[in-house]
């Protein structure tokens, strides 16, 4: 027998090894380093205090997204948010780093603008001081989040010391049922393998449902890799990937484009590649998903009942479910559908791209947000916003009673002060339903954009399939 085939991960990894550090750890080259307002200037100041300069400013890009207000005119950005924005401007200018500033084309949630601008490319190693950097894996990049210390390391060296992860191969097979989206598939996977199921792994998503899926859907799938514990998730690049990237402002052009595509075609895992773990998901069994608890693994189909702790034998698991239900204010064993909501948030690096807004607008069109519900639509980027406006989506939302806002992370993590109130319940298209994630004592249910829009109209968690057109 010959050598087994190589995985997509191995091909990208090996190409970036500057020097081996130990048996399983390498010094890797970083092709793209993305900075945002929450940690970008801190890293640059840290570097300065060490008497160092940015190793490759031309491979480093910045945008404000976390701490800026998403109100029209950016009214309400806190003093500290303004200070962070000012510091990011000053420090990127000093270092010669390109920044996509507010109101400029290119600004937006860092994980939305990378692919949109063609900064994120197949075969790239991309890092950012944000755990949802795995999003860019949807283009076939090896992308992952790093902490502040590693961020400074990358600024100083354009390299990072990393231990090679194990590999997991997740095949989504079959056709999506009506009302089911990329978000539902990845939530169902997290429910299946658990919030720690991917810890220590890089996950490659494959199978017919991924091949048939749009690039924006793949970005959503990869975005939630970290919620199953995997800091990297990726999809092999294919013709769809190349079509998505062709002509984007920072993508290669002309002869260099041809050269790049030729290289990218060699990236997919070989047919005989061996993974450390294989998971197969039958997509046809998946219905729209919604979370009920305080971890993304607390997820059920929208027509299911909330779990009953009394039915759980394992005491630790039973206690975990009790804690979650207590925090969420839900009744054990009751149907999740029909749970009244106070808020709906459509946005975040998970689900704020044009296709997400179209799906939500499709449900909202000609209907009205239920009385007592506040519903926000926060486009992922300046470009998404402009394209959505050109299609009239903003008008659809506003006519239905949604608030149409400026691009940013907003209420996903509430770093800019935009919060769901204590004890209030939100259906959100974001990625984390953690305790207090959207504000102190806020209760979050994760769902797809269409399901979130349906909840806004119904005033309660609703099976979007009953509202389809």
């Amino acid at each position: 027998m010959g050598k087994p085939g190589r995985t997509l991960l191995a091909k990208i990894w090996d190409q970036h090894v500057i020097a081996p550090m130990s048996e399983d750890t390498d010094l890797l080259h970083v092709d793209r380093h993305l900075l945002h307002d929450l940690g970008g200037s801190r890293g640059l100041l840290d570097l300065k205090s060490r008497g160092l300069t940015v190793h490759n400013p031309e491979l480093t890009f910045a945008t404000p997204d976390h701490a800026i207000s998403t109100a029209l005119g950016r009214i309400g950005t806190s003093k500290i948010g303004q200070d962070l924005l000012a510091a990011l401007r000053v420090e990127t200018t000093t270092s010669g780093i390109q920044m996509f500033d507010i109101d400029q084309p290119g600004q937006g949630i860092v994980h939305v603008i990378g692919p949109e601008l063609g900064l994120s490319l197949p075969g790239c190693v991309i890092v950012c001081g944000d755990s949802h950097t795995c999003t860019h894996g949807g283009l076939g990049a090896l992308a992952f989040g790093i902490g502040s210390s590693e961020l400074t390391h990358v600024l100083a060296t354009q390299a990072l010391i990393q231990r090679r992860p194990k590999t997991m191969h997740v095949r989504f097979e079959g056709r999506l049922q009506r009302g089911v989206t990329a978000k539902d598939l990845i939530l169902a996977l997290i429910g299946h393998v658990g919030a720690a199921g991917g810890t220590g792994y890089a996950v490659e998503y494959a199978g017919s449902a991924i091949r048939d899926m749009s690039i924006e859907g793949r970005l959503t799938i990869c975005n939630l890799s970290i919620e199953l514990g995997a800091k990297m998730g990726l999809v092999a690049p294919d013709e769809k990937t190349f079509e998505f990237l062709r002509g984007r402002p920072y993508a290669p052009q002309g002869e260099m484009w041809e050269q790049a595509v030729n290289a990218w075609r060699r990236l997919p895992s070989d047919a005989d590649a061996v993974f450390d773990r294989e998971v197969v998901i039958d997509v046809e069994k998946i219905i729209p998903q919604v979370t009920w608890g305080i971890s993304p693994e607390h997820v059920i189909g929208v027509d299911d009942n909330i779990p009953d702790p009394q039915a759980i034998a394992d005491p630790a698991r039973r206690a975990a479910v009790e804690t979650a239900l207590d925090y969420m204010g839900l009744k054990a064993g009751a149907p999740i559908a029909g749970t009244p909501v106070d808020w709906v948030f459509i946005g975040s690096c998970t689900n704020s791209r044009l296709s997400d807004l179209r799906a939500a607008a499709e449900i909202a069109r000609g209907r009205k947000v239920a009385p007592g519900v506040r519903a926000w639509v926060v486009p992922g980027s300046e470009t998404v916003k402009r394209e959505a406006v050109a299609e009239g989506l903003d008008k659809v939302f506003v006519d239905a009673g949604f608030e149409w806002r400026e691009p940013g992370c907003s209420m996903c993590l509430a770093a800019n002060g935009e919060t769901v109130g204590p004890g209030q319940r939100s259906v959100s298209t974001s990625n984390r339903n953690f305790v207090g994630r959207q504000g102190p004592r806020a209760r979050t249910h994760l769902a797809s954009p269409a399901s979130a829009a349906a909840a806004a109209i119904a005033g309660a968690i609703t099976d979007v399939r009953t509202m389809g057109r």
Partner: protein
Amino acid sequence: MPKAFDKLTAIAAPIMRSNVDTDVIIRIERLVGNSVRGTLGKWAFGSLRYLPDGSENPAFILNRDPYRLAEILVTGPNFGCGSSREGAVWSLQEMGIRAIIGSSFGDIFFANCFQNGILPVVVDKEIVDSLAADIEATQGAGRVSIDLKAQTIVSPSGKQHTFEVDPRRREGLLQGLDEIELTLRRDYEIRAFQGADRGARPWIYFAGKQA
């Protein structure tokens, strides 16, 4: 510059729930700003530690003696999952935590610990459970010892367990090495890599500049 870690004998507090995420360890609004370090210790585990009126929650273990003095946490599975915020590690460090023993950790949190001189120890869940039981049997008064060089943990009742740790990480912690400084010493290798890579993958280096 990370602090060195060699050995530690200290009070240990079991926090055994699963999936304690970094939002629970430190809320985001505490981390907004460039001068938050040094202010975070009292906000660690805020949602568990304080009641809605701001007073201490007596039910939370770190509000009880002797656990208030804990320098070691013994944790349930997937501790530190979620965001990459290094502030989660800073906040624990600022409240005096120097080592965390658990069956699994969020990958990014795990790496962030080493960067700050905090030792995360991975052992089987049975060992974590037995340690927690041992600690609780002494109402927290019994000390836990961790020896990084010997790669051993000794429970309050004297049970010894061994643990595995990446040898490179171990060396870094024992000596308190600064990774940036070490990597910069190899800058000639980074530049040689980039020189060759510019020929192989020119599109990486000419983002938006070909036209």
